[in-house]
C-alpha cells in the first residue's frame, strides 16, 4: 500500500496508512504519554492521556488510525493540561503512597506525575477504602493502586480463553476482579512476572520476589518517562 502524509506538530511525515497515530509519532521521535496502552495489546483508549488534537478534534492517539493529510497536534498547552489533570485525578481517586510501593521508580503513573511536575493534586484526595488481595500464592493484588487501565485484562493468552482478570461493577466503584481458581491453576513464575510487568503501577505485585533493583536505580529514576522516544529531556 502506498504511503500517506501526516502532519504532526507542523511537520509532515510519511507513514503507513491505518497505523495508529501514537505509533507513527513514536517512530518519529515524538513522545505522546500513555497509561492504558501497552505494546502488543490491542489499544482501547480509556485513560485518555494520549488525547491529541486530530483534525481539530480531541481523539486518543492510541486508537486513531492515520489517514492521508491528517493534521495532529500532540503537545499544545490545552492537551498538556488535560494530561496533567488526568494524572492528578488518578492520584486523588486511589491510594498511591509511592515511598512504600514496590513499583516506585518503575511506575508509569509516578513517572508521569514527575513529568508534569505534580507536587500535590489539585483535587482533594478521596481516600477510598480498598482491599488488598493476597490470597494467590504467586501474585498480590493491591486495589488501592489500581488505575483500571485494563492492561492485565487485555493481555490474555488467546482472545477466547477464559479471563484471569476482569472488571467488576461500574463507574467509580469498578474494580479488577481475579479468577483465583484459574490463576492458581495456570500461573507459574513466568506468567506472574508477565502480569506484574503488564501493570503500569503497583497493583499487581509478584510474591516471593521483590526489590531486586534498589530504589534510586530503577527505570524512571535514571531516565524520565518518554526519554527513550524524545530527545533533549532531562530530569
Amino acid at each position: 500500500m502506498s504511503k500517506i502524509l501526516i502532519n504532526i506538530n507542523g511537520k509532515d511525515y510519511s507513514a503507513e496508512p491505518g497505523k495508529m497515530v501514537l505509533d507513527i509519532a513514536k517512530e518519529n521521535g515524538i513522545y505522546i504519554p500513555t497509561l492504558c496502552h501497552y505494546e502488543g495489546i490491542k489499544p482501547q483508549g480509556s485513560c485518555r492521556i494520549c488525547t491529541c488534537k486530530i483534525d481539530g478534534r480531541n481523539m486518543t492517539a492510541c486508537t486513531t488510525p492515520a489517514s492521508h493529510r491528517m493534521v495532529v497536534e500532540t503537545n499544545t498547552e490545552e492537551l498538556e493540561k488535560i494530561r496533567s489533570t488526568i494524572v492528578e485525578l488518578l492520584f486523588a481517586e486511589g491510594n498511591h503512597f509511592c515511598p512504600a510501593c514496590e513499583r516506585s521508580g518503575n511506575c508509569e503513573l509516578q513517572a508521569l506525575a514527575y513529568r508534569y511536575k505534580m507536587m500535590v493534586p489539585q483535587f482533594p484526595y478521596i481516600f477510598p477504602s480498598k482491599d488488598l488481595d493476597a490470597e494467590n500464592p504467586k501474585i498480590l493484588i493491591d486495589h488501592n493502586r489500581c488505575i483500571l487501565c485494563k492492561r492485565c485484562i487485555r493481555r490474555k493468552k488467546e482472545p477466547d480463553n477464559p479471563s484471569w482478570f476482569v472488571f467488576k461493577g461500574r463507574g467509580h466503584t469498578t474494580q479488577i476482579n481475579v479468577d483465583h481458581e484459574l490463576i492458581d491453576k495456570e500461573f507459574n513464575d513466568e506468567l506472574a512476572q508477565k502480569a506484574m510487568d503488564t501493570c503500569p503501577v503497583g497493583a499487581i505485585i509478584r510474591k516471593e520476589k521483590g526489590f531486586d533493583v534498589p530504589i534510586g536505580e530503577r527505570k524512571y529514576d535514571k531516565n524520565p518517562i518518554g526519554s527513550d522516544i524524545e530527545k533533549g529531556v532531562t530530569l
Partner: protein
Amino acid sequence: MDNKQSRNPEFSNNDNCTCECNDLDAILAKYNNDPTRLMDILIDVQMQCGCVSEKAVKVIAKAINYSSVDVVQTLSFYHFFSQTPTGKYTVYLNDSVVAEMMGRDEIAKTFEEEAGCKFGSVSEDGRIGLFNTSCIGMNDQEPSAIINQRVFTKLTTEKVKKIVRGMKNDYDTEDLIGTEVQSNILKQGPILTKDSNLGEAIKKAVTMSPEDVIEEIKQSNLRGRGGAGFPTAMKWRFCRNAEGEKHYVFCNADEGEPGTFKDRVILTDRPQLLFAGMTIAGYAIGSDEGILYLRYEYKYMEKFLEEVLSKLREEGLLGKDVAGEKGFNFDIRIQFGGGAYICGEESALLESAEGKRGEPRDRPPFPVVKGYLQQPTAVNNVETLCAVAKIMHKGAKWYRSLGTLESTGSKLISVSGDCEKPGVYEVEWGFTVNDILELVGAKNVQAVQVGGPSGNCIASNEFNRKLAYEDLSTGGSLIVIGNERDLLKDIVLNFTEFFIEESCGSCVPCRAMTVQYKNKLEKIIRGNGVADDIDQMLQWENVMKSNRCGLGHTAANPIISTIKNFRELYDAKINEDTDFVSEFDLEAAVAESCKTAGRVPNLGGE
C-alpha cells in the same frame, strides 16, 4: 491451600443459596449456550431466582466456556442483576429529579415503614426488597416504582400501604393494587396521527429499489432523533455499502435519559409504526434481522410487543417474503438490557447486546462498518424509525413541508415537572420553549431542563429559543422547574449523582471527575465555596470533553449549564472575602479520641 475455603464462602456453603437455580439447563439450552446471549441468560435467571447466585454463575460460566469472573464482569455492570437475593417482591423506586419533585421521599418512607426494611436492603424474611433506581420513564406519573417487572404509577402513601399488605399476603404481582401506566398523548402530530394501513408503507418500500428508498429518506432530510442528529439516509448508505457476512438493523429503545418517556408511548401506542420503520430500514440496508434493544425498565411491555410481532408475521409483514416481496426476509427480536443508562450510546448498546459490559467502543470503526458481532449495523432511534415509515407512506415532499428548513418533520417531547399537563407532545420543529410551556400550563417557571441531564438547563431569557437542530437541539424532553425549587440542591446535585451512578468507569475523566464535581458542588451548597471553586469547575469541562463517549462529554453539563445560566445562584453561596475556607472541623475530628482518653480537647486560642 487452606485459605481456599474462605475465599468464596458462597461456593463452599451452597445452602446459603435458597433459590431454585437448579433448573438453569433449560435457560441455557434456550440460548444454545451462546455467550453472546449472556444478557438473556442473566435476565432469565434473575427473574426465575431473584438473583444470579455464585452457584448459578458457575453453571453459566461452564456452559458458555467462560470463567466465573467473566460472567460476573457482565452481571455486575447492570443495575437489575444481583448476586444476592433481592426479595420475592423487588421494589425499584425511581429516585430521579421529577420523582423527588412529586413527593418520592414520602413514598419511600412509607415503603420502609410498611416493609420493615431500608432502601438498599431486603426484609428479614426475604419477602420484600427495596431499591432505588434511575428514571424509569414515567415522569408524567410519578412517583412510580417497578415491582417484579410491573410498573406502579402515581403512588400515594395509601396505595403503598395496600401494595405492601398485598405482598405480605403473597398476592401475585398482577393482583397487587396499582395504577396502570398511562400514555398521556396530549398533542398529536404527523408521527402520532394514526394511519389506516401501515402495511402500505412497507409495500411501497419493497416495490422500490433499496437505493431509491434511501434516496427518498435523503430527500426528506430526516436526521436521527436520538439527539446527535446524524442524517439517517447517510447512515444507511454507509451501512449498505459496508461489507459483511450479514447486516443488522438495531432500534435503540434504551430510553434512559431522565425525563424522557416518548419512546415508551410509541412502543405501547404505535408499535406497528416502529416495526414498519425497522422493516423498511432492513430492506434499505440489506438486512434480514432487526433487533429492538429495549431497556429493562420496559420489561412490562414484552408480552404485548411479542403479540404485535406475531400479528405482523401472520399478516405477512414480517418473516419470509415480507409484503409479498420474493427474497426479502426480515424478522425482529427483542433484546432486553439490564439497567444501564450508558447502553443508550450506540456502541455500548451493541456491546450489551453481545452479552458484554455496556462500555462504549473506540471509533473508528463505526457501527455501520463493524457493529453487532462485528457486522455492519444501522442503529436508529425509535422515533427516527417511526418517521421512516411515515415518510415511505406519505412521501419525502410531505415530510419536508413540516418543521424548519434544517430540521424537517416533527419532534415528540416528553414534558414533566412543575406543570399542569405533563405528557407527550408532538410538535413540529421550530416550536419555541415558550410555546410548549403555554401548552402544558406551566407558570412561575424558574428553569427548563432541555434534553435531560445531558442537555441544557436554561433560564427565562432563552425560553424564546426554537427547538431545532440549528438552535436548541433535544433528544426529546423538557423538565419544567418551578420558582420554588432549590435548583442547585434539588436538581443539579441529583443529576450529577446520576452521572456518577451511570458512568461505565472506563475513561478516567468520566469515572473520577464526576465524583470531584459532586464534592465541589456539595462544598458550595454547604456554604464552604470560594470564587475559585466555580472557575475550577468551568476549567474541568475541557477534560470532560476528552472522554470517549457522549455520557462523558456531557456529564458535567448540569453544573456547567447552570453556572452559565444561573451564575447568581452560585455566587450567592460563595464566600466573597476569602479565597480559602477550611472544611476541617478539628473539634469533630478529635471528639472520639478525647472521649476515649477522657480528656477535654485543647484546641488552642483563648
